[in-house]
């Protein structure tokens, strides 16, 4: 008893119990318990300790907040990033799997393919084959980043720098995202889509909805506009729509709403799927966006089915910039977190332990296996992007004579922040590589190009990382990231509307590469379901 606090000795048994319970809870949840050894004398004087943002491996919200503010200062002042407001959410591993399987979006309509993805990821995760991502970030305003609960404090700092500033800046500034996506509206749109699809399922049955969504998902890659915005609806169309909305409001008007107190809005009308046919004979050909074409011109679809196609098409379009900027986006985020973490350390805001942990995870993220390595799975976008961006900084600060030849405008200017911000804003993977991949990097990655002709049983090495090959390797690599070439180019050539309504599609082959036969049959089947009549898909040589 002697050791106890006198206050506790005086307290009744019950109170004492309460006190211990409280102490127990505090001790269980306090991150300090693991850090006992760290606190004791490791950092020496009090003054040193106070400067560090965190000393423990476990995170808490106060530490997150402190660290976020420090990162923000560096990001805005040193890197001059321009970001959407951030919203950082801490989630559990199950929620991370959830987010994975719904295309990384916080809200998503229901579809079996997401369930399949979840089942697969879940099994992989449980069996230990794959670790979870440390973060997911959503191109929206506010920019939502998910932090995994199990991350250590160092990882949370890294992830905040990576997602909440790196990706965020890229989303806000890259021309593709600015042009094609609407960061303010995406969450509302997803909420609408989810409700609408649920309403459709209730009204028309799950199977009906599922078959349309299946078909639409199969055409997602062919459901984007690559070069133009969708045509604006004609004036009559807009007027007609407005008239119909007014008519609906008139019909749904209720005297009772007037009696609501000031400032209370009457409940919004639920999304009601319309069930009328809409068939537009006025088609503009050729059309590369198959989903758009089917939505507008399919003779068999009903209005709600067209709306489903539109939802899938809008999602495809929303994700299209991400597909074109994998290297840049990840490179940008990786470069930003690398720079910020180093600056944090330089300024004495994080200790050596966290820096070692950060470097360990950073190096495994930017690891590039060689082509004959068992781990090789294509070029790692993190590795290439990070290397190129660090290289831009190097060229701006310490150029070699070779760099001066290759990048006269950039070499030695010292303004790497400006150069990078310009690159992030105005390039996509293809043009970025074509513009900025330096001979030094090609040597470092030991890049070489192979020529592959299907009939021959050997590849031919067409260029390697030498003086004669640099330009060729670089443009071939850039070409590899051109979605215009990597995706099959399929267009609607015509439809026999007067006759048997056969739809004619053409695949414009690039260098004689045809479509994969089995999947071609399957996807054509989906198109037939949406079109309602025969579909002919022809391979056309260049």
């Amino acid at each position, binding site marked *: 008893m002697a050791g106890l606090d006198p206050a506790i000795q005086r307290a009744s048994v019950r109170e004492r119990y309460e006190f211990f319970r409280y102490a127990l809870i505090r001790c269980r949840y306090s991150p300090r318990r693991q850090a006992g050894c760290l606190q004791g004398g490791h950092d020496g004087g009090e003054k040193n300790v106070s400067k560090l943002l965190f000393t423990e491996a476990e995170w808490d919200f106060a530490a997150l907040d402190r660290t976020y503010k420090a990162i*923000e200062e560096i990001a805005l002042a040193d890197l001059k990033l321009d970001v959407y*407001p*951030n*919203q*950082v959410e801490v989630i*559990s591993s199950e*929620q991370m799997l*959830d987010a994975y*399987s719904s295309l990384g979006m916080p809200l998503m309509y*229901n*579809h*079996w*393919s*997401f*369930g*399949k993805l*979840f*089942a*697969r990821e*879940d*099994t992989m995760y449980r069996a230990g084959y794959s670790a979870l991502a440390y973060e997911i970030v959503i191109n929206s305003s*506010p920019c939502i980043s998910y932090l995994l609960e199990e991350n250590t404090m160092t990882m949370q700092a890294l992830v905040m720098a990576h997602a909440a500033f790196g990706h965020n800046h890229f989303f806000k500034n890259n021309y593709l995202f600015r042009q094609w996506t609407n960061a303010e509206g995406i969450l509302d749109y997803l909420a609408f889509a989810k409700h609408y699809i649920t309403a459709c399922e209730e009204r028309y049955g*799950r199977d009906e909805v599922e078959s349309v969504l299946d078909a639409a998902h*199969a055409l997602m*890659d062919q459901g984007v506009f690559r070069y133009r915005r969708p045509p604006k609806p004609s004036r009559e169309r807009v007027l007609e729509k407005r008239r119909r909305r007014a008519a609906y409001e008139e019909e749904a008007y209720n005297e009772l709403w007037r009696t609501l107190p000031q400032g209370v809005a009457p409940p919004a009308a639920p999304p009601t799927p319309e069930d009328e046919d809409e068939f537009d004979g006025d088609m503009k050909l050729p059309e590369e966006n198959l989903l758009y074409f089917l939505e507008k011109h399919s003779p068999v679809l009903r209005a709600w089915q067209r709306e489903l196609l539109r939802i899938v098409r809008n999602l495809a379009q929303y994700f299209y910039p991400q597909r074109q900027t994998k290297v840049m986006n990840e490179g940008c985020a990786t470069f930003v977190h690398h720079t910020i973490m180093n600056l944090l350390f330089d300024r004495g805001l994080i200790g050596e332990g966290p820096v070692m942990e950060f470097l360990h995870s950073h190096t495994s993220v930017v690891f590039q*296996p060689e*082509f*004959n*390595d068992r781990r*090789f*799975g*294509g070029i790692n976008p993190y590795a290439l992007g990070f290397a190129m961006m660090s290289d831009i900084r190097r060229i701006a600060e310490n150029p070699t004579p070779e760099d001066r030849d290759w990048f006269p405008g950039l070499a030695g200017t010292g303004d790497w922040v400006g150069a990078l911000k310009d690159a992030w804003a105005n390039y996509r993977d293809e043009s970025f590589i074509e513009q900025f991949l330096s001979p030094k990097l090609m040597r470092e*990655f*030991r890049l*070489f*190009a192979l*020529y*592959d*002709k*299907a009939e021959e049983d*050997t*590849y*031919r*090495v*067409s260029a390697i990382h*030498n003086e004669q090959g640099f330009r060729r390797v670089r443009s*071939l690599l850039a*070409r590899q990231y051109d979605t215009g070439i*990597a995706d*099959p180019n399929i267009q609607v050539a015509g439809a026999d509307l007067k006759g048997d309504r056969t739809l004619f599609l053409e*695949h414009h082959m*690039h*260098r*004689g*590469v*045809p*479509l*994969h036969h089995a999947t071609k049959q399957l*996807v054509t089947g*989906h198109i037939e379901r949406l079109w309602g009549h025969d579909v002919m898909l022809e391979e056309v040589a260049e």
Partner: protein
Amino acid sequence: MTYFIDRRLNPKGKSLANRQRFLRRARAQIREAVQKSLKESAVADIAKDRKIKVSSKGTGEPRFRLDPHASGERDFVLPGNKEFMPGDAIKKPQGGEGASGKQAADSGEGEDDFEFVMNQDEVLDIFFEDLELPNLVRTTLKETPNKTWKRAGITTAGSPSQINLVRTMRNAHGRRLAMRRPSLREVEKLQAELDLLEQELPSEETRAQITALKEKLARAIARRKWIGFIDPVDVRYNSFTEQPVPTSQAVMFCLMDVSGSMGEREKDLAKRFYMLLHLFLRRRYDKVDIVFVRHTHDAQEVDEQEFFYSRQSGGTIVSTALDKMLEIQKERYTTSDWNIYAAQASDGYTQSGDARRCVEMLNAEIMPLCQYYAYIEILDEREMEVFASEDSGAELWRAYRTVAELWGNFATKRIAKPADIFPVFRELFKKAEA
């Protein structure tokens, strides 16, 4: 402006709807896979989560993709050059494996079968999907389940007719004690004292006492006023909830030979059969009684544990088990209220002459009572080959065959190895053709 939001406590299972859709979508493949997986595993493991491997057929998500292996030409860039010089020829890896194959898999979907974990409920749902106890005659009951009111504790709200007086008064009493409400007796005592004093000769002292007493009395009366005898907070009501009455009750008699002639292997097989049966009944029907009867040369009713796990030695007289079953049935399970099912497992040996007695009992007494009677004969694999034909067999088997000919709801099956159990089980309890 930054928000940190803790989402960890948000409701879980957001993707449940997607999972259900997926399971529904892949129903056919999953069913096949589940059945295969069940067949290969021990019956005891049936109630466990299991890994299911599903082929991508039916759940494939086809997309258009290019096939550079078919024809045409392309260039691609790889990292990690070691010795290659321009113009070198490199043999293509066979079967699309290696560098180029991986590339192709990246751009398209090199999707094979994939594995995922199904939980116990999902597995069992699929397994039991098209099984049902045969010919379940709803002897006493109607289609719609009846409901009855059952007590469900005490509530603070309810209709006055359901007031629970004892509880209410007890609460009131407790509250009165706690609030120190003066009892009527105390007030009367004060009054009596006061009266007594008032009758005495008035003096300074008594006057003061009277005033004090009056005050005390007034306080007590006032206190009684504002601390009610019964307060609304004291009132308690009996609560009732509706509960479904089982609309059909069935009793399942499990008979098993545990004599010496039943070896470890036979017992094990029988055990598996019953365990599965047991699981099935427990799951499928709300109200199913299971009676375990084991027999050697005489029969006993035992509990589940003993039935499966204890040993006994002795001869074999099957009819004793039938006697015991009849006895229990008469005692507890009248045919007007219960559907009676019986499942018997044996190695086919019985005392000579006993088989005939069994047949007589079955024909005369048991079969008229039973909805269904299943007889499982456990053979070893060698015997299984010898008795390939349905007609040949040991004494009991041949005797039971005659019963089977007479009664449509009598079934006989032979099993020799664990893998035989499931097919038998399915066949026995196949949904009655409507």
